[in-house]
């Protein structure tokens, strides 16, 4: 009988061992995923007790943590100076609803739990100091950001301004916006009410129109088609057919010019200057869908940009018949782009055909000001320098004598391209103006969206160009 009792003993030991092994597995195998689980209140609570790092725009603090003075159990209160202005950059940081944008993507650095900070944390903890998170310094220029917001006043839409040589995003404005302070409050009931209001507001104030929404780019897409043509051996003087209208192959619909292009033939430069739809439809067909798509993808379509704020990919349709290709060549049909993407197109052309990868975070600084992370510029060749130069010349013509005259600044080299995309001819929905100015070099992409509040029709040249000009002037 003792033998069997010993067997029971061995079996009991195995059961105990199974419990111990399972606990080991919880710690080693599951801990990371459990800590990152959005339902894990403990992890978030722990974050809320940390002196979270600042987010800066240059030297301006746009998100800060200050010692909490309310009755809640949290030690720190997140404060957003000028919240609505910087909301698309900072995002929000809420106990209930989690976080977004940089508050989300740089969370571990802001909390101080990133791998580069563990030693400092250990020293802080053992020496009795409260560990503090690192600061995230963004590329945003407060002057430009404010100017862009001011220029955008009265419109729904977005503005992206960037340095064409480095890819640094200098301004990133969306309208309407919201105040992230509402969601960072320690009054959780009020936070829930605010969240309800913000998420049910028909104007979608929490939508970032600059990087996270895609819209038909309209005639601004002609920059890509023209670049593709130049790369294929066209010159700005190559003549292209531009009848007053073309019939879309396989359908009874027609596509017509919205400006007077002479109804015969125009040069490529002239077609861009006047934004001749039929010329670019014909050009697109003669280049072929794959050439146009390849060019769009080289400029950055079909891949996401600015992951710091969760930027989305602009799209160019995967398969096209000739009718769809004609519409796509003028930035309609299923072509859709973020304002950031269109700024990247112009940036590439201004930077001699080399595309600087856009970025928003310049560096991450530890509380002792040591630099934990610094951005390294990344440049990808897209088009030849000569193509880029020709495109610049053509864009200058657009502003000098074309559809973009409203963006002219005396004594300054300004180039640009307007765009107006529409669901039907009488009802333009989106107005675009993408442009650049030299010395100092800057690229601005303006996107305006028509909605109930702005019943007047919006036009790229008439409405978006003046907005862009204001931002260009603010940069000087």
């Amino acid at each position, binding site marked *: 009988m003792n033998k069997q*009792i010993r067997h029971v003993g061995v079996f009991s030991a195995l059961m105990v061992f199974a419990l111990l092994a399972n606990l080991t597995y919880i710690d080693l195998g599951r801990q990371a995923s459990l800590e990152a689980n959005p339902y894990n209140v403990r992890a978030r609570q722990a974050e809320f007790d940390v002196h979270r790092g600042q987010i800066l725009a240059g030297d301006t603090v746009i998100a800060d943590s200050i010692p909490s003075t309310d009755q809640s159990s949290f030690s720190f209160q997140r404060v957003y100076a000028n919240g609505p202005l910087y909301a698309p950059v900072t995002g929000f940081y809420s106990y209930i609803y989690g976080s977004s944008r940089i508050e989300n993507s740089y969370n571990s650095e802001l909390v101080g739990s990133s791998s580069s900070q563990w030693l400092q944390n250990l020293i802080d903890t053992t020496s009795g100091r409260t560990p503090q998170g690192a600061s995230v310094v963004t590329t945003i220029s407060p002057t430009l950001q404010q100017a862009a917001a001011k220029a955008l006043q009265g419109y729904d839409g977005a503005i992206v301004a960037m340095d064409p040589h480095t890819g640094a995003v200098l301004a990133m404005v969306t309208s309407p916006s919201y105040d992230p302070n509402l969601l960072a409050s320690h009054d959780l009931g009020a936070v829930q009410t605010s969240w309800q209001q913000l998420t049910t507001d028909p104007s979608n104030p929490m939508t970032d129109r600059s990087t996270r929404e895609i819209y038909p780019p309209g005639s601004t897409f002609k920059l890509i088609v023209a670049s593709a043509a130049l790369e294929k051996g066209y010159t700005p003087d190559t003549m292209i057919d531009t009848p007053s209208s073309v019939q879309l192959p396989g359908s009874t619909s027609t596509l017509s010019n919205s400006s007077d292009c002479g109804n015969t033939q125009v040069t490529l430069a002239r077609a861009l200057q006047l934004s001749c739809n039929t010329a670019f439809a014909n050009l697109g067909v003669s280049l072929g869908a794959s050439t146009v798509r390849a060019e769009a993808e080289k400029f950055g379509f079909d891949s996401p940009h600015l992951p710091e704020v969760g930027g989305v990919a602009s799209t160019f349709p995967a398969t096209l018949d000739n009718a769809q290709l004609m519409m796509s060549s003028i930035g309609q049909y299923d072509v859709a782009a973020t304002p950031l993407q269109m700024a990247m197109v112009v940036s590439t052309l201004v930077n001699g055909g080399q595309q600087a990868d856009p970025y928003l975070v310049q560096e991450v600084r530890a509380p002792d000001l040591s630099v934990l992370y610094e951005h390294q510029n990344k440049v990808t060749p897209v088009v030849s320098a000569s193509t880029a130069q020709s495109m610049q010349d053509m864009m200058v013509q657009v502003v000098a004598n074309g559809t973009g005259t409203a963006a002219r600044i005396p004594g300054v080299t300004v180039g640009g391209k307007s765009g107006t995309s529409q669901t039907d001819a009488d009802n333009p929905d989106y107005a675009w103006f993408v442009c650049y100015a030299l010395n100092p070099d800057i690229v601005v992409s303006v996107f305006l969206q028509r909605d109930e509040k702005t019943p007047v029709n919006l036009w790229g040249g008439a409405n978006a160009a003046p907005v862009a000009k204001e931002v260009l002037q603010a940069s000087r």
Partner: protein
Amino acid sequence: MAATVQGYRIRGATQLILILFGQSIGFAGYILTGLFRDNAVPAQWPVLAICWYGLGVLVHIGARIAIPYADPVILPITLALTGIGLATLHRIDLTSGTSPMLGNQFVALVIGVALLLVIVFLVKDPRRLKGYPFLLSALGFLLLLLPLVPHLGTEVYGSRIWISVGGFSFQPAEIAKIVLAASFAAYLADKTEVLALAGRRILGLELPRMRDMGPVILMWVLSLAIMVFENDLGTSLLFFGLFVMMIYVATARVSWIILGLILFGAGGAFVLKFAGHVQRRIDFWLHPFDFPNDATQIIQAQFGLSHGGLLGSGWGLGRPDLIIFSYSDMISAATGEEIGIVGLMAIIVLYGLLVFRGLKTSLVATDIFVKLFAAGLSFAFLLQTFAIIGGVTRLLPLTGLTTPFMSQGGSSMIANWILVATLLVISNQARRPQLQAAVGPEGVTALGEEYTQVFSTRELAQIGTGTIRPVLPIATQQVRLGASGNVVPDDNEWTGNDELTQAVPVPAPEPPVVPTPAISPPAPTPAVPPPASSPAVPAPAPAPVPASAPPVFSAPVVPGSGVTRPTSPGPTAPGPTPPAPHDPEEDDYFGRGMD
């Protein structure tokens, strides 16, 4: 049955030191909770310290008087676990906002300890229970099925394993596990030989005879009934597992285990298919995050353990308020979050040690019923702990069992103290020198069996000064009872017990022992081979001792159980002795290391 039993030294001081140390773990938790939460030692600490340590000293003194030979580690472990549980409940009291639980739990503990003292003082012979197998079974089954009585049973989180009387709730399974372990032991002690008989042989497996299957089928139906109607996999597994384990221990037939697993598996699969709520528990176990609103207990326990990490958040700094039932079912998660994975592992090891001490008690006991009873109690205790901690840590589907000694709840506390009291009484009986048994009504009839009386160093000294007199009129530490009942002097031998310090020859009192001619002259006396049925001490090696001359004081020590003891070289030292025949039965690989 084994008749040779090793006696054990009384280890009073060890027990007291261990009790105070074990109690200090929980008390430190209480103090640290105050320090971490309020930066101050709790104001009532002197009162609590007096009550808490006073209780420990009281139970020690009681045990020292009533059951001096009982295992000295069982009580300290029990009090350590109780202390950690109390500290956790106190810590939950601070954040729960409901009425404090610490006071009630302490009252339950006092009742439990009082019952323990009553039991150890009044119950001298647990073998009495042997006489009532059917009464005990009936009582056990009644208790198990009690929660199904309308208006009496209450459903908690889908499981119907509680009854509620006059505002008090009670988990009958807690008492039932003791009662049923006793009833199984009584039944099996009676039927060991019959159940071991082979029946038909199917697929290389010797099945028991159909006529012996009745009790197994009964237990199977009962277990399935618990699973279906009380909706608790843990309780069901606890009792069926207990039964299968005990039948295996009694019969040594693996076929019973396989049969049990097949029956339980088939029944379980059937229940799963037709009873949705058990399936739900399993879904919560496998994919808790698919049910964020329903599987919150498991999810929050996981978050707590992972956020606490290896070393824990510290006493009072976790978030047991996020875990539903953190004070009862989920208490191991609440504790584990604050004292870390390492701390929870230590708790599990404590439970394991307690179970191993229980099994060790079963090993050294002589009576079949008592052996089965002790083994059953220990294994039931382990199954319960395994089911609940495994459920909390997501090793198994969560069940509604309590965590012994830690969970809030009087019934659990009291029932488990009764369990410990029973184990202690058995342990005391098994470990005390068995000479009374030798002259008892049964003892003298045991032809050819051996008895050993052993003494500690201190006792030896006392014998020398006349303080203690040996109980039996024997000439040496080892005697043989001849057929006539005569005491035959035999060789000295080392019994192989670690706690023994020295074998001792006892001055022969009058009348002097006269060797019977049948055995005389036995110089050197051949070793008496232990009876085949008995896991006896290995036969003593022949020593050149004249039969008529009593051995000298420093007797040669012969390796027993394959363990070599340093011998004090005496004039009669036999030189290098060959190792005793190695009896694998005796190879105490399981129990020895823990003594």
